[in-house]
């Protein structure tokens, strides 16, 4: 049991992080219909910012070079990680939303991610280049006397509190005219504008919020793992979060959490403990193929995902006895 606990705790922590990331991406993609193919770049921004704010100055003679190194206490690095990631999300949105939509918007976000990846990798003074940052201490671990191998004991409660907060925000959006308007933008931007909705400002807000949530997920990642480098935010990572959202049910917060449990908790974490079959990279390759295959199958046979979109109706008078309900079927295609 003692050997299994860290394994399950680690998997659980990753599920928490991916649930947070999935809710953020769901706001952008599932609810508003923004195809952001560089979502994980904002996870990286959060991770790097939280990392260099938590770390002290690079030790002399270590060869490490990174900016800041302010040694700030919890929870300041996480809050600032969210703000910086949100800020960059807003800048990207301002750049692309004025003129681009659908395919062109998606391609542009992909290009922006590639640019960010190259900057971080080649600019060694920023975040220590390809080696990345490491040795990031776990918040509050020393306060509670938690040994380094058991950092999940601190981070799981912190992660759960943050997940609850993020879910509450997303749930309030779901219940509000704001959420309904975001869905209208997904379904038809021109019609939304024709009925008085400032689509640019609304999309900008969702990009900032979703990217800030990604930043929080990144901050938790670096504080859990203790390190972050460019190999951790390759393009495929974004698609893993998309897989969680698509499998769970775009537009449904609980559905995407279920998707995060399936993709991260079962498939990714589960595959780490499979015996090596053939070449060392075969199991990870099979894992990605399984995720990709499941996404294709779900998109083909059940485009609403495992759960499907629900829309709690805030305004339904309670006396009518109508409450949270599922949308009565969906065409399951983006035709806006």
């Amino acid at each position, binding site marked *: 049991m003692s050997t299994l606990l860290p394994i399950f705790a680690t998997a659980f922590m990753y599920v928490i992080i991916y649930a947070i990331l999935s809710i953020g991406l769901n706001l952008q993609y599932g609810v508003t219909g923004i195809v952001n193919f560089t979502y994980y770049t904002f996870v990286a921004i959060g991770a790097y910012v939280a990392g260099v704010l938590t770390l002290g100055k690079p030790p002399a003679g270590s060869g490490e070079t990174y900016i800041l190194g302010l040694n700030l206490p919890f929870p300041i690095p996480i809050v600032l990680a969210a703000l910086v990631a949100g800020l960059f999300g807003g800048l990207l949105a301002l750049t692309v939303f004025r003129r681009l939509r659908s395919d062109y918007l998606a391609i542009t976000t992909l290009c922006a991610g590639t640019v960010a990846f190259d900057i971080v990798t080649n600019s060694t003074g920023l975040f220590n280049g390809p080696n990345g940052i490491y040795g990031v201490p776990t918040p509050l671990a020393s306060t509670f006397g938690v040994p380094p191998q058991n950092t999940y004991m601190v981070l799981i409660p912190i992660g759960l509190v943050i997940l609850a907060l993020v879910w509450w*925000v997303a749930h*309030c*959006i779901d*219940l*509000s*005219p*704001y*959420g*309904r*308007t975001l*869905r*209208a933008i*997904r*379904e*038809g931007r*021109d*019609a*939304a*504008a*024709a*009925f*008085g*909705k*400032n*689509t640019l400002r609304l999309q900008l*807000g969702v990009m900032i*919020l979703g990217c800030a949530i990604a930043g929080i997920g990144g901050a938790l990642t670096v504080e859990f793992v203790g390190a972050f480098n460019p190999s951790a935010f390759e393009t495929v990572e974004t698609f893993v979060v998309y897989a969680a959202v698509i499998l769970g049910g775009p537009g449904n917060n609980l559905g995407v959490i279920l998707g995060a449990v399936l993709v991260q908790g079962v498939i990714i974490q589960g595959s780490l403990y499979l015996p090596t079959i053939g070449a060392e990279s075969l199991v990870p390759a099979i894992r990605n193929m399984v995720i990709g295959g499941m996404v294709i199958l779900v998109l083909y046979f059940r485009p609403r995902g495992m759960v499907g*979109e629900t*829309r709690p*109706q*805030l*305004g*339904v*008078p309670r006396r009518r006895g109508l409450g949270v309900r599922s*949308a*009565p*079927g*969906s*065409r399951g295609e983006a*035709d*806006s």
Partner: protein
Amino acid sequence: MTSSSRPLLDVVQVHKAFGGVEAVADCSFNVVEGEICGLIGPNGAGKSTAVGLIGGALRGDRGQVWFAEQDVTSWPAHRRARAGLLRTFQLSQEWPNLTVIENVLLAAPEQIGETLWSALSARRRMRRQEEENWGRAEHLLAVFGLTALRDQLAWTLSGGQKRLLELARIAMGRAKLALLDEPMAGVSPALRSSIISQIRDMQASGISFLLVEHDLGVVGELCSRVIVMAAGRVLTEGTLDEIRQHPEVAAAYLGVSR
């Protein structure tokens, strides 16, 4: 003309070219408060472009659009809509994967809880207003004969039902002027008379209309005045009987040479 004497909608020398094609060429016309004004012309006359320019979906190369005595030329579409200038589209643009009542609720103006901050902080006020809006939306669905479809996703509606839904949204949005772009396109004869009577009722409730329509029977039934466009220009305007006598209209639109 002083600004205080302007009609509800005043389009002044508006021009829009796509590449070398002049879709709308220095057009001027107006819609006065309370009227249903028809805008007709052959395909490619520039009617839908004109509607786009008035509604704010398109930016003109030059000219001015005045609405309710305000120069709205530089206003984006959402700001014009908030001022009471609402439109429908040539192809119905319902929000397909939202329910019928959600489609109507979305048109309600000045909704509390339509920003992130108010969605999180003003939940009690938001709920109260939402219940009022819900009641009004249900009333409008009853008026437009859509009550039975309230919880259906909008994409499941027939062409005519979608047109009725668009009119319900216009009513919910408290429009002063509605731009209807071919509201009878794809509508069965049975629903046609229903839509005509709904437009008349909406006019009686104070909504003015600019009606783009090919069906001259509908135009004759609804419009007190008709503007004719051809090749991006305003050919003439008057009652339907007057414009029928116009030789250029007969040639350009009715296909008759005199």
